[in-house]
């Protein structure tokens, strides 16, 4: 089926393995000429740096200093993984869904807002801010992804007691790497506050933000509905794969993971 989107839901893995698997996913997307999606978790909890971020900043960031660090090929801010659901979407660059960066963001983020609404969980897309100069935009970017706001990020009002006046909190962000032949989009959905982080590095997830009396869906139900809506917005259907992508491509994933596990890569900036 031409407009089918194969999706794998992989087991939790360490950072380097996850990055290696995503690089293998890109190669597979190019070979198949179609959008592929991989969902996964992280074990142990870890910090993933955006492509341009400084390794020293991770080591100096209060509340996460002891966590293992891996560098993503994609942009954006650092993410503390462990209580999030991460996705990687890979699509050939000249595929209709790969030609515009915003198209994939809109599909994945808009669908999450709609999916959450199905459980009466209020979320929205962060609106566009006024124009900023590149230098100003760069200088003002916080280190952690969930402290940043970009147009289209999924945000939720803070319904925790005493936090009603707080600005909406980000629960989902994504960033891309535009490679020569493909686009890799990484995204993270913060399900609950990450116990591996502390202080200001710990952000509330959907569970905390939804407030008392709101039924939080089982993750598999939420993801199932989300993917269905992603596919609908792209005019496609989901084809959930049996088994794991990383498991099926184990030797290639292990080979690619080697680079992501090296200090030379992680501390290259």
């Amino acid at each position, binding site marked *: 089926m031409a407009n089918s989107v194969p999706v794998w839901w992989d087991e939790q893995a360490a950072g380097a393995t996850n990055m290696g698997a995503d690089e293998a996913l890109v190669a597979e997307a190019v070979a198949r000429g179609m959008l592929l999606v991989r969902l996964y978790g992280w074990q142990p909890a870890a910090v993933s740096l*955006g*492509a*341009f971020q400084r390794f020293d900043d991770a080591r100096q960031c209060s509340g996460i200093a002891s966590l293992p660090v891996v560098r993503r*090929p*994609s*942009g*954006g801010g650092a993410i503390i993984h462990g209580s999030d659901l991460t996705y990687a979407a890979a699509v050939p660059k*000249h595929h209709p869904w790969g*030609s*515009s*960066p915003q198209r994939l*963001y809109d599909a994945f983020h808009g669908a999450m807002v709609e999916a959450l609404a199905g459980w009466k969980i209020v979320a929205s897309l962060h609106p566009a801010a006024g124009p*900023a*100069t*590149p*230098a100003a*935009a*760069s200088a003002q*970017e916080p280190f952690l992804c969930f402290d940043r706001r*970009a147009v289209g990020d999924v945000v939720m009002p803070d319904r925790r007691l005493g936090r009603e006046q707080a600005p909406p909190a980000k629960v989902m962000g*994504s*960033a*891309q*790497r*535009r*490679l*020569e032949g493909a*686009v890799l989009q990484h995204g993270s959905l913060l399900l609950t506050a990450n116990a591996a982080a502390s202080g200001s590095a710990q952000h509330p997830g959907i569970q905390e933000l939804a407030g008392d009396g709101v039924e939080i869906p089982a993750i598999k139900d939420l993801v199932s509905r989300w993917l269905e809506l992603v596919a609908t917005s792209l005019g496609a259907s989901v084809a959930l794969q049996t088994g794991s992508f990383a498991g099926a491509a184990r030797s290639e994933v292990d080979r690619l993971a080697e680079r992501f596990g090296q200090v030379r890569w992680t501390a290259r900036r």
Partner: protein
Amino acid sequence: MAADLKFAKSHEWLRPEAGGLVTVGISSYAVEALTDLVFMQLPAVGKKVKAGESIGEIESVKAVSDIYAPVSGEVVEVNTALPSHLETLGKDPYGDGWIVRIRPDNPHEADQLLNQAAYDALVAGQSH
């Protein structure tokens, strides 16, 4: 736009200069597609590059993209002012927004790149 520009399919432009050098930048289409640029990393002067090889990276608010060498050769000059003034890429992508100057290994390698009309057709195809 100068008629002597050549383009790579990966959206870099190249302009022949006096003394056998070529100036390289990225097209206005690429700059617009990236949107909201925040960071850029350039190669070191003296770096040997091969055509199609990454010579730098550029980050927008939501994406990181590589900049590819359109021809093989040696990087002889880098626009070091550019990373601090990324807005120049949008204002003048074919002038002050130049990125590197390369001394090509083969002066005829650029002949294989796209001319303006062919590049415009490529972009038109990608925009639909």
